[in-house]
C-alpha cells in the first residue's frame, strides 16, 4: 500500500515537470512584457508536434534527445516571429487587445497544425533507454517519469542561475519592474523582449516535446493546457519562476492523490487549490502586489443621450419590431442571433468597460444560463418561461460563487481567474455525461407550442434582450454604476470615501453574470440545443472581440461590435480555413482599429462637427 502511494507521488511529480515548464515560460513572458500570452498553449502544442516529427525521423537515443531540444529551439524561433510581427506593436495597448491578438494567433496555429499534421491523434515513440519501468516499493514506475522528475528541478536551477547570475537576467528582472527605465539606461528593449519571449517559448516547446513519449499529440493540447498553466501562474505569483514550480508540484501531486478519491476531481481541484491560496495570499505564493494592470485610456465622463440619439434608438427599436413583417426565415434567425450577441456583449461590457474587471471567461455565465434553462425543460419538465427564468438565476449563482474570488483580485490576476473558472465549468459540462450529455450536448430544447412560431419567439427575444440592454444602460448611469466606474478609476479613492468596493464589484459581477444568463436562455430555445462549447474559451473570446470591435469606451460600443461580429462570423464560417482567416481578421482589427467601430464613428462625428462652422 505504501508503495502504491509513493508511486502516485512520483506520477504527480512527473506531471508537475511538464506543467512547470509551460507555466514558467508564461510567467517569464508576463513578467517582462506584461502580456498574457494566450498563444503559449499553441507554442506548447507546436513543440510537441515538431518533436513528434523529429523523433520519428532521427534514430536512437541521440536522435531522441536532439529531436526534443531542436523542437524547443524551433518553438523559440516561432515565438520570436510572433513577438516581432505582432506583440511588439501592442505592448502599450490595454490587456484586452493583447489577449485578443494572442487568441488570433491561437486560431492561426490551430489551422496550420491541422494542415501540416492532420486531425488524427499522433502517438510518439517511447524514449530510447527510458522505455521500461523500474520497481520501487514493488510498484512499477516508468523510467521516463523518473527522468522528468529530475528535469523539472534542473531547469528551475538553470533558470535561477540565468536570472540571478547573468547580466541578461538582471536586465530582465529590471525590465519586469520598469521597462521604460531600462530603455533609458541604454538597453535595447526590442532585443531584450524578443530574447525573453524566446526563452519563454523555448520552455513551452520543451514542455510539449517532453510529453511526446507520454501522451498522444493532438489539436486540443493548446487550450487544454493553457487553463491549467494560468492557474499555476496565478497560484505561484505572476512573474515568479519558483512560484510556478511550487504551484505545479502542489497541483500535480494533489491531483495524483485526488483522483484516488474521486476520478473527476482533476477538473475542479486546480481551482480549489487556487481559491485557498488566493484567500491567504491574494498575489499568489511568491507574487508581489506589483502592477498587474495593462495600460488604460482615460475615459470621458458619461453624458445623457442627446435627443437625436434617443430618436435614432427609437427608430431602430421600431424597425426591429417590424422585422417579422418583412421576412419570416433567415432574417429572423439572424435577428435573434444578433439580439443574443448584443446582450452577451453588453453584459460583458458592464463588467469590463464600466467595472474595469476584464473577464476572460464570461461565456461561463452565458453557458450556465443556457444549460440551466435546457435542463429545466428536459430534466425538471418545466415550461419554457419558468425555464428561461431559471437560466439567469443559475448564472447569477455561478457568478456569485466564482465572483467572490475574482473580485479579490484585479487586472490580469482577475482575468486569469475568470478564465480558470470558465474552464472548470466547461470541464464539468464536458465530463458530467449523465446530466449534461457531455460532448453530445442537450438536444430538443424547443420553445413552448405557443411560441414555436419564429416571429413569436423573435418578439420574446426582442423583449428579453431589449429589457436587458435597457437595464444595463440604466445601471451604467446609476449610483451603483458610478461606483463601479469610480472603483476602476481609483480604488484608493473609492475606499477613502467609505465605499466597500469589493462588495460592489461582487454585485456587479453577479449582475453581469445574470444578464449573460438571460442571453444564454434566449439562445438555447432559439437553437433547440446546447453544447459545451457555449462555455468554452473560444466563446468567451468571441465576447471580448465584440466589445473590442465596438470600442470599450462607449456604452453603445458592444451593440455595434456584436452586430459586426455576427455578420463577419456568418460569412467567414462558410469558408475553408475559417479559423486562420478569422485569426487574421482579429489581428487586423487589433493592429489597425484600436478604438473600435464606436470609436471610429465618434471620430467621424468630431470631424464633421469641426467642419461645420460653429
Amino acid at each position, binding site marked *: 500500500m505504501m508503495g502504491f502511494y509513493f508511486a502516485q507521488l512520483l506520477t504527480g511529480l512527473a506531471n508537475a515537470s511538464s506543467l512547470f515548464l509551460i507555466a514558467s515560460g508564461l510567467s517569464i513572458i508576463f513578467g517582462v512584457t506584461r502580456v498574457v500570452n494566450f498563444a503559449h498553449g499553441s507554442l506548447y502544442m507546436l513543440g510537441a508536434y515538431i518533436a513528434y516529427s523529429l523523433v520519428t525521423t532521427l534514430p536512437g537515443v541521440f536522435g531522441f534527445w536532439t529531436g526534443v531540444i531542436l523542437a524547443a529551439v524551433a518553438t523559440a524561433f516561432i515565438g520570436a516571429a510572433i513577438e516581432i510581427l505582432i506583440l511588439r506593436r501592442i505592448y502599450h495597448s490595454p490587456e484586452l487587445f493583447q489577449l485578443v491578438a494572442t487568441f488570433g494567433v491561437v486560431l492561426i496555429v490551430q489551422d496550420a497544425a491541422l494542415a501540416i499534421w492532420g486531425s488524427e491523434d499522433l502517438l510518439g515513440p517511447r524514449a530510447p533507454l527510458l522505455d521500461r519501468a523500474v520497481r520501487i516499493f514493488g510498484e512499477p514506475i516508468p523510467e521516463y517519469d523518473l527522468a522528468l522528475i529530475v528535469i523539472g528541478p534542473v531547469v528551475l536551477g538553470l533558470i535561477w542561475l540565468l536570472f540571478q547570475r547573468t*547580466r541578461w537576467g*538582471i*536586465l530582465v*528582472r*529590471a525590465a519586469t*519592474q*520598469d521597462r*521604460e*527605465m*531600462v*530603455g*533609458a*539606461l*541604454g*538597453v*535595447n*528593449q526590442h532585443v531584450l523582449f524578443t530574447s525573453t519571449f524566446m526563452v519563454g517559448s523555448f520552455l513551452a516547446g520543451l514542455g510539449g516535446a517532453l510529453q511526446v513519449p507520454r501522451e498522444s499529440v493532438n489539436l486540443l493540447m493548446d487550450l487544454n493546457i493553457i487553463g491549467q498553466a494560468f492557474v499555476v501562474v496565478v497560484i505561484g505569483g505572476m512573474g515568479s519562476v519558483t512560484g510556478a514550480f511550487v504551484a505545479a508540484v502542489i497541483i500535480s501531486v494533489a491531483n495524483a492523490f485526488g483522483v484516488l478519491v474521486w476520478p473527476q476531481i482533476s477538473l475542479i481541484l486546480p481551482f480549489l487549490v487556487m481559491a485557498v491560496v488566493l484567500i491567504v495570499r491574494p498575489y499568489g505564493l511568491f507574487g*508581489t502586489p506589483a502592477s498587474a494592470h495593462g495600460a488604460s485610456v482615460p475615459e470621458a465622463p458619461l453624458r445623457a443621450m442627446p435627443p437625436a440619439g434617443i430618436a435614432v434608438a427609437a427608430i431602430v427599436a421600431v424597425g426591429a419590431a417590424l422585422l417579422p413583417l418583412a421576412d419570416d426565415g433567415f432574417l429572423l434567425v439572424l435577428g435573434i442571433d444578433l439580439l443574443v450577441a448584443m446582450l452577451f456583449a453588453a453584459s460583458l461590457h458592464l463588467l469590463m468597460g464600466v467595472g474595469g474587471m476584464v473577464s476572460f471567461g464570461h461565456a461561463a455565465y452565458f453557458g450556465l444560463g443556457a444549460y440551466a434553462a435546457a435542463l429545466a425543460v428536459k430534466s425538471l419538465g418545466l415550461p419554457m418561461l419558468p425555464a428561461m427564468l431559471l437560466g439567469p438565476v443559475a448564472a447569477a449563482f455561478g457568478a456569485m460563487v466564482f465572483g467572490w474570488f475574482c473580485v479579490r483580485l484585479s487586472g490580469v490576476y482577475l482575468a486569469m481567474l475568470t478564465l480558470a473558472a470558465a474552464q472548470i465549468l466547461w470541464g464539468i459540462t464536458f465530463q458530467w455525461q449523465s446530466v449534461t450529455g457531455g460532448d453530445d450536448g442537450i438536444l430538443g430544447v424547443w420553445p413552448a407550442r405557443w411560441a414555436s412560431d419564429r416571429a413569436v419567439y423573435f418578439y420574446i427575444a426582442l423583449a428579453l434582450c431589449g429589457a436587458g440592454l435597457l437595464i444595463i444602460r440604466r445601471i451604467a448611469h446609476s449610483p451603483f454604476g458610478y461606483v463601479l466606474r469610480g472603483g476602476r478609476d481609483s480604488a484608493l479613492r473609492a475606499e477613502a470615501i467609505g465605499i466597500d468596493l469589493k462588495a460592489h464589484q461582487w454585485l456587479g459581477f453577479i449582475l453581469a453574470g445574470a444578464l449573460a444568463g438571460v442571453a444564454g436562455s434566449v439562445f438555447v430555445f432559439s437553437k433547440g440545443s446546447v453544447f459545451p462549447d457555449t462555455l468554452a474559451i473560444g466563446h468567451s473570446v468571441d465576447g471580448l472581440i465584440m466589445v473590442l470591435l465596438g470600442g470599450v469606451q462607449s456604452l453603445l460600443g458592444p451593440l455595434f461590435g456584436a452586430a459586426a461580429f455576427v455578420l463577419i462570423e456568418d460569412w467567414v464560417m462558410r469558408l475553408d480555413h475559417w479559423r486562420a482567416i478569422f485569426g487574421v481578421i482579429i489581428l487586423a482589427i487589433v493592429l489597425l482599429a484600436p478604438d473600435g467601430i464606436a470609436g471610429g464613428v465618434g471620430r467621424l462625428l468630431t470631424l464633421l462637427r469641426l467642419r461645420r462652422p460653429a
Partner: protein
Amino acid sequence: MLEVTALNTFYGGAHILRDVTLAVGPHEVLALLGRNGAGKSTTMRSVMGLVRPRSGRVTFAGADMTGAAPYKACRAGLGYVPEDRRVFRELTVAENLEVGRREARPDAPSWSVDQLFGLFPNLAERRGTAAGRLSGGEQQMLTIARTLMGNPRLILLDEPSEGISPLIVEQMAQVIGEMKSRGLAVMVSEQNLHFARLVADRAVIIEKGEVRFEGTFAALDAAPEIARETLAL
C-alpha cells in the same frame, strides 16, 4: 552640446510643448524652471526619446537625435534621472547599478562602482539591500548613481529636490556640484528657485509649454515680474 530647436510635443490631442528651443553647453548646469504641468518633464522625455516630438529637432554633440529610441539617446551620452525615484525595487543596490553600467567613453568622465560608493556613502553600506527598502532620499541618490554608471556626457535631472527632506536636498546640491566639477553638463528641472540658484549657471523658464525666459539669474533678478508670473512665487 545639446540643442533643442522648435520642439512640439503632444500627448494624445493635448499640445504640451510649443516651439521649445533651448541649449546646454559643455560643462554647463542649466536649470529648467516652471510650474507643475508647465512642460519640464515632457521636455526631458522628448530629449530622451521617451516621447516622440511631432516637430522640431534635438541634436546632441552634433548628431540628430530627434525621436531616436531611448537606448540610442543613452548610448549617445545622455543620462536621464526621472522624477519620482524609479529604482528597480526588487533588485539590490548593486544590481541597480549593474543595469546602468555601460562602457567608458573617451569624451566623458567615467564612473566606477567604487567611486560612486565614495560619492554616496549611504549606498555603499547597503549594496546588498533591495532598493525598495531604501529611504526616499537614498533611492533618489541611487537613481543618480545608476545613471552615472552609464558614463554620460550630459545628465538630465528631473525635479531632484521634489518630495525629499531639506537635508537630502542639500546633499543633492553637492552632488550636482561634483558632477559639474568632473566635467559633466547638467540640465536640472526645478520648481524651487532657491535650489536652482544654488546649483545652476543659467536658467530657462517654461510656462504652458512655451519658453518664457532664458538667461542668467542676474538677468532674472532684474526682471522680477517674470519669476512672479511664471513660477507663482
